[in-house]
């Protein structure tokens, strides 16, 4: 036999055979998930794999995407069901799969499930099912999910709109801020207020100009929400507007504006703008007339 050499244990090995065997084994192991995945794979098994309970999920992007799409497609009827148990079953599977995909080091899975969910937010999915999908996108979605969510900010379904706003509020990407900002001009009433609140909660410095405009509006609820958002963002340009809001409208609105001024001062101080913060605080103290 050729190439027979003694190894450490004193046995002999065929070098060529060893090389071929190792190569084939390595290729097989690397492709195991892909090999195991097939379009006909049982959904339950696929769910387990995508939730970290079975074999590893497919590694090839296309197959991973296809796997998530199949599972989500299978869950939609449950999410859209009128039966509480059906909804619960489907939502629990969806949650488990999404939360597992959100673990550190699994960006490919997170991206694939987020894209697959965002794609479902179209016309063929009932509003009810969309709400469950949107909720998960708020927890694992990123910029890839924003365009689909942004469209839902115009939905006729108030519950879905509100769910979408909350989801976008949680997504840290700048794209989510832009989507919220863009939705404001077309929004009315309570939903416009809600969008303003989201921008404040995100401390979105890019929305200051927009919020300064909203803070000049006649609508007391909107004006107050904008003033509070500006306080949270902590931009000194908002000071005169907040002070003006403290003298307008009903007592509760004025009180909320006054609180916003204190928050603004605190936030300016935190950002290192101590002079501006101290100026506000001095004005507050100076203007405080003991009435008690």
């Amino acid at each position, binding site marked *: 036999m050729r190439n027979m050499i003694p190894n450490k244990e004193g046995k002999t090995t065929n070098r060529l055979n060893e090389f071929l065997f190792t190569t084939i084994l390595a290729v097989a192991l690397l492709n195991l998930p892909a090999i195991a995945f097939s379009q006909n794979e049982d959904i339950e098994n696929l769910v387990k794999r995508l939730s970290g309970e079975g074999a590893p999920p497919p590694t090839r992007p296309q197959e991973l995407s296809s796997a998530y799409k199949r599972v989500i497609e299978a869950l939609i009827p449950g999410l859209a069901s009128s039966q509480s148990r059906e909804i619960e079953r489907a939502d629990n599977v969806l949650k488990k799969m999404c939360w597992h995909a959100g673990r550190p080091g699994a960006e490919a899975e997170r991206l694939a499930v987020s894209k697959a969910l965002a794609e479902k937010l179209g016309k063929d999915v009932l509003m009810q099912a969309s709400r469950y999908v949107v909720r998960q996108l708020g927890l694992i979605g990123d910029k890839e999910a924003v365009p689909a969510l942004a469209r839902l900010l115009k939905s006729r379904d108030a519950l879905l709109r*509100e769910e979408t706003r909350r989801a976008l509020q949680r997504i840290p990407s700048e794209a989510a801020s832009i989507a919220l900002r863009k939705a404001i001009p077309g929004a009315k009433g309570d*939903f416009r207020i*809600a969008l303003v609140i989201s921008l*404040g909660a995100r401390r979105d410095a890019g929305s200051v100009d927009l919020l300064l405009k909203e803070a000049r509006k006649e609508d007391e609820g909107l004006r107050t929400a904008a003033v509070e958002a500006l306080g949270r963002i902590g931009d000194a340009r908002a000071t005169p507007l907040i002070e003006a809001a403290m003298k307008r409208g009903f*007592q509760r609105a004025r009180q909320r504006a*006054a*609180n916003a001024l204190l928050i603004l001062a605190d936030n300016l101080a935190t950002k290192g703008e101590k002079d501006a913060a101290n100026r506000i605080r001095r004005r507050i103290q100076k*203007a405080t007339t003991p*009435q008690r």
Partner: protein
Amino acid sequence: MNRRDFLKKAAKGVGFGLVTPYVISSGVLSAPGRPGANDRIALGHIGLGRRGTGLVRLFAREASTRSIAVADPDAKRRASAAGVVGKGCAAYTDYRDLLDRKDIDAVVIATPDHWHALQSIHACEARKDVYCEKPLSLTVEEARTMVTVARRYKRVFQTGSQQRSSPEFRRTCELVRSGRIGKLHAVRVEVWGTPRDYYLPAQRVPDWLNWDLWLGPAPRRPYHTRRHLNWGGCWDYSGGGMTGWGSHHLDIVQWGLDMDHSGPVEVFHPKGKAHVVFKYASGVVVLCGRVGANAILFEGTEGKIEVNRGHFRTWPEKIGKEPLDPKDVHLFKSPGHQKNWLNCIRTRKRPICDVEIGCRSIIVCHLGNIAVWLGRKLRWSPEKERFVGDELANRWLSRPMRAPLHL
């Protein structure tokens, strides 16, 4: 000056006059025409369920207080609680009407968990001192905001984790912190139960209930008796057993570990087990769940101490019998949880379970729930109050409220 005149004048001065955080409640500072330090503290009660009504009764026994208003979206509960107080007690559907009253010095909050943060914050902004039932909050962000706001307005804020005022728990923590059981290495805590979503059909809203107000910052959902009455198991309104009992027992763990201004650095839920594991920087491991302890069991190199309400046991027995030396750790002896708060309202000192302490304890509970939900090992920075290296886990630290309500 009658109340109407006063309110008119106050309204005129709302711009800067009411903005100051340096104002303390009317019943605390003596001034011409205003009650002085020796007068009774005027209380408002927000939330009148079983615990809320219990607190109305409890404070009614305190000679230094007078309850003058109650608020709850449930008309039956309002009437019942107002009846407990008796003549002269105003009853409101909306707590904001109660907070508008300038003659109320302090409020007692005992609503479902999802309301705690907002009501406490609004009370602080209205310059009321606060007694807020545990669990302090529904999220980490809420708890931290509550501390910030209480400090901004210089409020006396007691978290209702009343085991801090019980002698058996104090003594346990004194012994542990004095090294009487040697080097502490583990704590077992019998607390378990994460909340879940409720998937329930719509039912007719009872005509005595303002359901929208009851939901408040929680997502809009149709009425169902289970949501309304069993809210403690639903994650829209509660952190379940983990926060319900955790805010008692894990609060004592924090006290025993001298971690009132810090917390664990790692948390995980071992697969298939009914417990979570918290690791502290000191190396102490806390097992929290179905772990076979009678409430709390501190385990050291030289002994163990187990404590529950009315239960105190040590191994060896002598540990529990020996008195503390002057050099040992001596913790503050609270005269009673409610009484301590009332005393602090007068002295403006921080109470035994100040909001910062309550915040740190409830954060531990929230971490436990998040670890169960996410099923992975989480590293935690007690300084930054953020998960380390897991940005998606950090999204679980806050929860957007239903507009127009917000933190």
